[in-house]
């Protein structure tokens, strides 16, 4: 990013003032730790970049209320550590690096998305520095709140388009007493039958992940809760394995997480969202050397690898769109990027109409992180 000036506000008001001044001069970039920077197109010609590194720390935390309010530059890991001391957690386990603000702006999530939803389900309020120099607060500290427009949701996945998130409040939950991960290994058909069976039985697994391991597929089912719950869920995995012919074993806690992470050295990373029933057919269509991780109860498939060429990717993108889904090429070499862009989406018109409405309200000069979302590529 060719940036003329790097700014690091240490208060909300200072962030608003700096953003106001920068956006009066031209485009202003808003960044967190930069850990997800490459997932989005660069901001267009910024005259300054504001980072949130000095907006750090916990603002309010009353464990009995099951909510926590933190400054947006706080690393997610620090938030989890503070919650852990009270045996609580934020049920979001995305890409492990990065700040809370970056997590919201990128709408990232991980295996726990299966049971606990995404950022939009945990986030109950934000405070934002606006390009007009004001600090606005949307949502609040309470778990139910319908006062005014829910613009908090507009910041989820906003990639900084509507100002700088300076503070966020989340719903949190008690840490599970126990956790056991069961691995079921077999053919894709067998594994798919197993995940469908477990889903039909309304079993509350915290995470259900599928990965290809050489010529087999492995389903990781994470059971969390009190002992009685974990034991029952493990039993159900055993039953599903028996009826589908999968091999079953207890997996070490980090094994599934290792697979879910982008392998070191992978130059291409595609994240696909499809209606969950399409997951098996998408996995079946992948070439044997394509490393993939799927959340089949949700409809997320992440594909990594060096072997992913233009034709493979083009076909996957087309399949995603035909299934009424979308795809985000989080990482790619320049040549691929030039050919395929950043996103493929089934329909873009509704967002193209709504995005300017939010933009007109929150950044009418269109100087804030210009060019970083799917909806302002042509502006």
């Amino acid at each position, binding site marked *: 990013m060719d940036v003329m000036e790097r700014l690091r506000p240490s208060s909300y008001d200072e962030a608003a003032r700096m953003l106001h001044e920068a956006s009066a001069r031209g485009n202003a970039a808003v960044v967190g730790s930069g850990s997800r920077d490459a997932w989005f197109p660069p901001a267009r010609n910024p005259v300054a970049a504001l980072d949130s590194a000095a907006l750090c720390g916990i603002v309010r935390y009353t464990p009995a209320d099951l909510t926590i309010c933190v400054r947006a530059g706080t690393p997610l890991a620090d938030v989890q550590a503070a919650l852990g001391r009270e045996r609580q957690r934020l049920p979001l386990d995305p890409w492990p690096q990065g700040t809370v603000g970056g997590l919201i702006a990128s709408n990232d999530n991980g295996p726990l998305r299966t049971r606990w939803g995404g950022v939009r389900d945990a986030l109950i309020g934000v405070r934002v520095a606006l390009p007009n120099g004001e600090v606005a607060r949307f949502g609040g500290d309470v778990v139910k709140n319908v006062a005014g427009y829910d613009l908090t949701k507009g910041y989820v*996945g906003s990639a900084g388009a509507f100002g700088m998130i300076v503070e966020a409040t989340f719903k949190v939950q008690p840490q599970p007493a126990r956790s056991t991960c069961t691995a079921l290994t077999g053919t894709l058909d067998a594994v798919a039958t197993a995940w469908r069976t477990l889903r*039909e039985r309304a079993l509350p697994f915290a995470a259900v992940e599928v990965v290809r391991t050489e010529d087999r597929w492995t389903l990781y089912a994470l059971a969390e809760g*009190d002992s*009685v719950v974990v034991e029952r869920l493990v039993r159900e995995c055993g039953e599903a394995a028996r009826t589908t012919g999968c091999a079953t074993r207890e997996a070490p806690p980090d094994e599934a997480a290792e697979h879910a992470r982008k392998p070191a050295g992978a130059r291409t990373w595609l994240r696909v969202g499809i209606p969950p029933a399409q997951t098996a057919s998408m996995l079946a269509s992948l070439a044997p050397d394509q490393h993939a991780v799927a959340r089949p109860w949700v*409809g997320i498939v992440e594909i990594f690898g060096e072997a992913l060429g233009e034709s493979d990717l083009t076909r996957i993108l087309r399949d995603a769109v035909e299934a009424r889904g*979308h795809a985000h090429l989080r990482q790619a070499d320049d040549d691929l990027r030039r050919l395929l862009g950043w996103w493929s989406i089934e329909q873009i018109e509704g967002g193209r109409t709504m995005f300017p409405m939010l933009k*007109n309200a929150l950044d009418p000069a269109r100087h804030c992180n210009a060019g970083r979302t799917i909806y302002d590529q042509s502006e």
Partner: protein
Amino acid sequence: MSEQPSSFIERLRTIVGDDGLFSEPQQLRLYMYDGSIDRALPIAVALPRTAEQVAGVVRLCHEEGVFLTPRGAGTGLSGGSIPLCGGVVLSTARMKAVLAVDTENQTVTVQPGLVNLDLTKHVAPLGFQYVPDPSSQGACTIGGNVAENSGGPHTLTGGVTTNHVLELELVLADGERVRIGSPAPDPPGPDFVGVVCGSEGTIAVVTQILCRIVRKTECVRTMLAAFDSCRAASEAVSAVIASGIVPTAMEMMDHPALSAIEAFSHAGYPVDAGAVLLLELEALREEVEDAAPRVVEICRANGASEVRVAQNDEEREALWKGRKKAFGAMGRIGPSYYVQDGVIPRTRLPEVLERVEQAARKVGLRVANVFHAGDGNLHPLILFDDHDPDQAKRAIAAGEEILRACVEAGGSITGEHGVGMEKRDYMVLQFPKATLAAFTAFRDACDPGHTLNPYKLLPSGLGCAEGGKRQKTMAQMQELAERNAAVGDAY
């Protein structure tokens, strides 16, 4: 309006057909109210059957500068569907089809006029349910739920409407039809569906909704615990949460509410109790069987004089029957009620409940409390005579005092009923000017002429001195209460 009303109404008729338009005074009177205390008469009611017709009505109103108020079933409690400034009411009552059920993807596509309970009834034989269950679920519509971002007793673990809507088809203020959201998870870009949920019909009319459904839970256990006081019951709520158990519902009813409910519903509630908690656990059988005795023990340790556990579906339904009909039961103890909907952090319940009681006492009115204790969502019902303008004024004053207490405790003026017209001028209590300015700018960007549901959600007359503004609205509400009394006398 650039032409005579009769001609405008004829143009409306050409869009929705003869049987899709009400314009006779006796018909219009049925659409002047919702579940709140205000009234206003529309000039016409359009009942479209298709999204095309909705778009036609919205476009016509937009072109002619005629106000348009969308309406589901009219069960709202904040005046959201009252045609405050006249104009056209657009009722979705004839768009109530279930268009598709997709059990594999666990979704249902519905029209906005579908009644909430009918959605659950439709999918129940397949083993599914729709989670948000407002107390008015037997009448309120999914479109109305989206507009208000409705909750209900089971949202503590299940979330509110926004957590169960994946995709929306909308008609925007100028009549343009758009689709936002996706049947696939996490579509790129901002969460537009989340922004539209709870926008109270001020930025769009919803014409189709893709809802998430979930499989029915394996085991449900409902229990009722009686306490001497609301304070003791509140402490039990915090103790249950602190133990790591999160019930799907934790509902509280105080003594005045219990008396009214029992007289009305004969649910078998202990009328001598100072407060009652209705708790529900929904989970795997083993989990419920493990947690239920612990909840009973926690309630007893916090002073419960009696804990009753429903032994079968019949007993469970009986326990819920009283709660779900609680608002209707208030007729037993007062001619009318003014219900507030403030939310507070759960740990502040005891002190704020005391302030609720003080606020009512100060104006010489009684208050009954029936509310979602688990998520701190209060529903104080201030009892008054709606034909007595002075009592109406006092009820409104007590309501304001209660909302102040909620905001001062770090909460919100509304948890699920919406701002509507009733709470629009209390928005200044909760939000800084910068937020209100952003809300207004968003409203302007979506609907520059403010023809969609005008004068709702946002404070009236932004730019006036705040105190003066509230006074002004109080006076307007007073005037409406007086008009309401006159209307009641006339019919």
